[in-house]
């Protein structure tokens, strides 16, 4: 399987601070790739740069061979790169149903949208009971599920997930990770950014470790789980 997304020399600056210092990575089609690291290492910044929400100071992003480095955020989504942003990414003042409908905002294939609507409710049955309630009234776990379901409504080719486990109870985290694995097994390419290093490495095919804006380690998920540096710095062994 080939690379669906190739990133080379990606740089992001915040004022005079170099938040991301020229990193390279690839996302292979059909795989879960994870980018792990501590708080403030540049993980979320990398994701926001991929989606075009923060300007890139340098580097190149190729999506299925096409240069998307300078595209506007909504165009990137239309091409098939959907992101579930960190924290409460849902629209609290809209209903659950409206959130899901907006996920398919740029699509015109009414029948397929209806089918996808049923499909995501099948993945997240808890959302079905809450369809006409305000999204802001959902629990934290349900909000995260809604955010993922909504991103799937765009029928993305790559799903970018920013800390889906943040602030959730351990049981819910297990469930979210189980669902991530399920949608990947159905063929979706996933880029997972996490501070929950152990969980992320367990489900990832490929992994990168980022420290202060630079990639310091890469390998398969299994390799990194056993890597002494990872064990010491992130897994507390």
């Amino acid at each position, binding site marked *: 399987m080939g690379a669906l997304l190739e990133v080379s020399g990606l740089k992001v600056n915040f004022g005079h601070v170099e938040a991301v210092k020229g990193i390279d990575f690839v996302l292979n089609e059909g795989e879960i790739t994870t980018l792990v690291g501590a708080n403030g290492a540049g993980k979320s910044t990398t994701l926001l740069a991929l*989606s*075009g*929400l923060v300007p890139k100071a340098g580097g190149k992003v190729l999506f299925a061979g096409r240069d998307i480095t300078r595209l*506007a*955020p*909504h165009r990137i*989504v*239309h091409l098939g790169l*959907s*992101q*579930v*942003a960190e924290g409460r*990414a*849902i*629209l*609290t*003042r*809209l209903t659950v149903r*409206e959130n899901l*409908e*907006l*996920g398919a*905002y*740029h699509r015109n294939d009414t029948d397929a949208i209806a089918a996808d609507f049923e499909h995501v409710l099948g993945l997240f049955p808890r959302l079905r009971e809450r369809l006409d309630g305000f999204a802001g009234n959902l629990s934290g776990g349900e909000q995260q599920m809604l955010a993922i379901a*909504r991103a799937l409504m*765009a029928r993305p080719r790559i799903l970018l997930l920013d800390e889906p486990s943040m602030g959730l109870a351990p049981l819910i985290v297990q469930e979210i990770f189980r669902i991530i694995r399920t949608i990947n097994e159905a063929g979706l390419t996933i880029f997972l950014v996490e501070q929950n290093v152990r969980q992320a490495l367990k489900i990832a095919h490929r992994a990168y470790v980022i420290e202060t804006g630079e990639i310091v380690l890469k390998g398969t998920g299994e390799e990194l789980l056993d890597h002494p540096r990872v064990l010491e710095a992130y897994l507390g062994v």
Partner: protein
Amino acid sequence: MLAQQLVNALSLGSVYALFALGFTLIFGVLGVINLAHGAVFMVGAYAALQAVVLAGLPIWAALIVAFLVSGLFGLVIDILVLSPLRKRHAPHLIPMIATIGVAIVLNSAVQGIFGADNLRFPPGVVPDEAIEAGGLHITAVEIGIILLTFAIMVLLLLGLRRTSIGKALRAVAESPKAAALLGIDVEGLLRKTSFLAAALGGAAGVMISLYSNAVYPLMGQPMLHKGIAVIILGGMGDIRGALIGGLFLGFAEVFAVAYIGSTMRDAVAFGLLFLILLVRPTGLFGKASERKA
């Protein structure tokens, strides 16, 4: 006489509501207190006047001209002033102050071109007939104002609730970042909002200049103050709030004049407004939490 006062209040309140609609739309979606809204309101009145006087258009066509011309001004203001400030993530106060500058420029330009005099629509532009029933006197202008305001209000509310672009607008209003990640062209929607809000302001300008038969460069100024009061009363950024707030102010003013005295009009109206805000600081439809992004 009470019925007559009710009619007067309803038509005056409708004009306030129409003005406040665009004003609250800009605040709700762009997060900007647009102090140039009074100026585009004035531009609308002048555009309609020119359409009638120079081009000899009927008033309904002049209203459409005013709608489009004001909308275009709103679009240009967005492209030249608001959009560059958004890109720099300027804090809320900056665009507000910038729009004061825009208002001054527009007021001076119009004064330079058309003079400071009070201009009038030629007689016969609107039908002079009025409905007289049981001592009640309703002019065609009043009926037009009330119908137009309620029609626009219903269209806007339905559009925001039912259509996909309406949902996208609500998404942008809550979080531009989340909206962009959903594939919504946020910048494009903000431009459309600026156009629509200014166009509604322009339409309101035509209606009030027909109502009071006066077109002058600073006509937007008193309207702006009332508009701010109306959207604060209604709840910042809320469409229904603009309607209720506008009607409230209209009723308060008309009844203050009728039963207390014309010199006390603003004192009574704004005193009542103050009392309501003491009880409900976020306005009638205001949400407890402000927008964060």
